[in-house]
């Protein structure tokens, strides 16, 4: 029974609202009594809020809100709630839950915790808005809403040069990209005279002489999204930002923010620039994304292969995964099984949300223990923290796309959709890249399990950070559980994606 028949339609936005409210509550809690910081309470609130969001979004998703009987349009269609938006809200919410859980330990005896959590949740709000943006205006606003807190979060460790440098680079590149994005939007508006995606779709067909303008606009918008998804050529911020930022934030950005970027890209390009309309005009954006995908995954994987710093290696691998996910936008063709491949890409982003978040949170744990950041510093870690290392091993092999982990199935579904769409060469490049990726992912595993600890087993890791542990384990369980549970996930995603092309 579709939900919207029982509740007023505005309730469909509830998940996003919940996230926003949680952020405000956190600020409130803090401003009531600014002096005494009570980390557990703050963490509890943000975890609670995100879990509630997750619950509602999941409930909607299962109940068929915005899927059965068409999408729900609010505010003149500038907000659209459908399978896609809910799906990505779920991703974002779960990542936020894990991240805030982990942050409880990570932020121990640091100041400005309330601000931290509320910024995270505000960014999350922006991301879930991105997922449901129905108009280019909403796209830009929500994208900025997601970005601005992120800049601040990356630079959160004010005394730490690395963090600051990361924040700066992230911000500067981000500013440029937002300029590019908004200029692109303005060009599209110039051609179509509207910002509503649906209207743009109808109007762009008869751009006439303005096809060049429209084309430039489309490419620039793509650029703006490329920044959010950390794809070439807007990826330069990613390695530094992920390396310098507090590890939970790296997790947050590389999983949730990337996912949101893809969410908005999927919607905008699928809805506003319909293939059968624009491709004949010479605006072949699938080809554009195909090129980006190939370059991105190759560059990311090759650069990751020779890193010494684990966090930076993960940063590059996250670029590589952006390349994989881009296949969801590249392997499209008029009348092809576009929903399948885009849905597969969505499913991959979900799995990636778990395994990548887990990996970064593990690094957060290592930083918490005060160990170094290079592979050598991980040597023999397994003898000291076997459970956590087991989880990390799961993440690594899952990222590399080995069975029996979720990452294998999602990557498989992705390449497979690409081949179905006739883009077997994309799949081939992807396959070769993931074969290479196995090499550097297994370096981490090797360091943890095979290498002997440099300083002997002597060093005591101190108290086990409970929240971090739990978060990491949740991520690991999720990564494993997504193998058997992959069926419903990918089906939901694919039906949601198919709805876009309808």
């Amino acid at each position, binding site marked *: 029974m579709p939900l919207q028949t029982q509740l007023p339609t505005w309730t469909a936005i509830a998940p996003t609202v919940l996230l926003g409210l949680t952020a405000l509550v956190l600020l409130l809690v803090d401003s009531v009594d600014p002096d005494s910081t009570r980390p557990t309470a703050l963490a509890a609130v943000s975890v609670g809020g995100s879990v509630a969001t997750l619950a509602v979004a999941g409930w909607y998703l299962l109940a068929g809100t915005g899927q059965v009987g068409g999408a729900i349009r609010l505010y003149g269609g500038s907000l659209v709630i459908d399978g896609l938006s809910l799906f990505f809200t779920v991703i974002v919410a779960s990542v936020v839950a894990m991240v805030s859980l982990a942050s409880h330990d990570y932020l121990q005896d640091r100041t400005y915790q309330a601000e931290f959590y509320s910024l995270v949740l505000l960014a999350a709000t922006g991301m879930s808005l991105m997922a449901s943006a129905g108009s280019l205006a909403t796209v830009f606003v929500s994208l900025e809403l997601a970005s601005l807190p992120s800049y*601040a979060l990356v630079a959160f460790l004010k005394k730490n040069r690395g963090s600051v440098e990361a924040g700066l680079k992230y911000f500067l590149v981000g*500013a440029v990209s937002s300029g590019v994005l908004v200029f692109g*939007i303005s060009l599209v*508006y110039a051609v179509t005279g509207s910002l509503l995606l649906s209207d743009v779709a109808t109007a762009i067909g008869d751009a006439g002489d303005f096809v060049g*303008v429209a084309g430039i606009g489309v490419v620039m918008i793509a650029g703006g999204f490329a920044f959010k998804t950390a794809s070439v050529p807007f990826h330069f911020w990613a390695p530094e930002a992920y390396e310098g930022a507090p590890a939970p934030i790296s997790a947050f950005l590389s999983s949730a923010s990337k996912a949101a970027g893809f969410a908005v890209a999927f919607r905008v390009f699928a809805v506003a620039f319909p293939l059968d309309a624009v491709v004949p005009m010479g605006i072949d954006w699938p080809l554009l994304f195909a090129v980006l995908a190939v370059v991105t995954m190759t560059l990311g994987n090759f650069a990751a292969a020779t890193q010494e710093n684990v966090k930076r290696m993960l940063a590059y691998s996250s670029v590589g995964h952006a390349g994989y996910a881009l296949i969801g936008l590249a392997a499209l063709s008029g009348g092809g099984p576009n929903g399948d491949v885009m849905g597969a890409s969505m499913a991959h982003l979900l799995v990636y949300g778990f395994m990548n978040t887990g990996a970064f949170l593990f690094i957060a744990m290592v930083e918490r223990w005060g160990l170094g950041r290079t592979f050598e510093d991980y040597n023999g870690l397994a003898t000291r923290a076997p459970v956590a290392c087991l989880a990390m091993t799961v993440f690594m092999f899952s990222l590399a796309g080995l069975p029996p982990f979720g990452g294998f199935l999602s990557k498989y579904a992705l390449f497979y959709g690409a081949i179905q769409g006739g883009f077997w060469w994309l799949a081939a490049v992807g396959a070769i890249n993931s074969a290479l990726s196995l090499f550097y992912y297994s370096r981490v595993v090797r360091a943890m399990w095979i290498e002997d600890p440099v300083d002997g087993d002597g060093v005591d890791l101190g108290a086990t950070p409970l929240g971090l542990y739990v978060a990491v384990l949740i991520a690991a369980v999720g990564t494993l559980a997504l193998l058997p549970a992959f069926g419903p996930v990918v089906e939901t995603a694919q039906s949601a994606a198919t709805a876009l092309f309808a």
Partner: protein
Amino acid sequence: MVPVEWYLLLAAAVFCIGLFGILTRSNALLFLMSVELMLNAANINLVAFSAYWGNVTGQTFGLFTMALAAAEVAVGIGIILVLYRNFDDVDVTLAKGMRR
């Protein structure tokens, strides 16, 4: 009545000036201003074509853009402040501790 294409060219010119500023300036504040130029280039388009199409969407969005630009600057200034605290300068090329 000025043909609307000219506004396109103007906007493009302004955008390129902003871009040029980004590429040449290593001072964070000037960097920020150049970004503002790029945003405003977009605003030119929006306003011009909102007039051309006869709907206010463009103008409204232009306002959004300015507001967001302001917000961006706010965050940006904050970051530049901590940059100054850590590197005693606002030269963005100084911060290159992480590379490769």
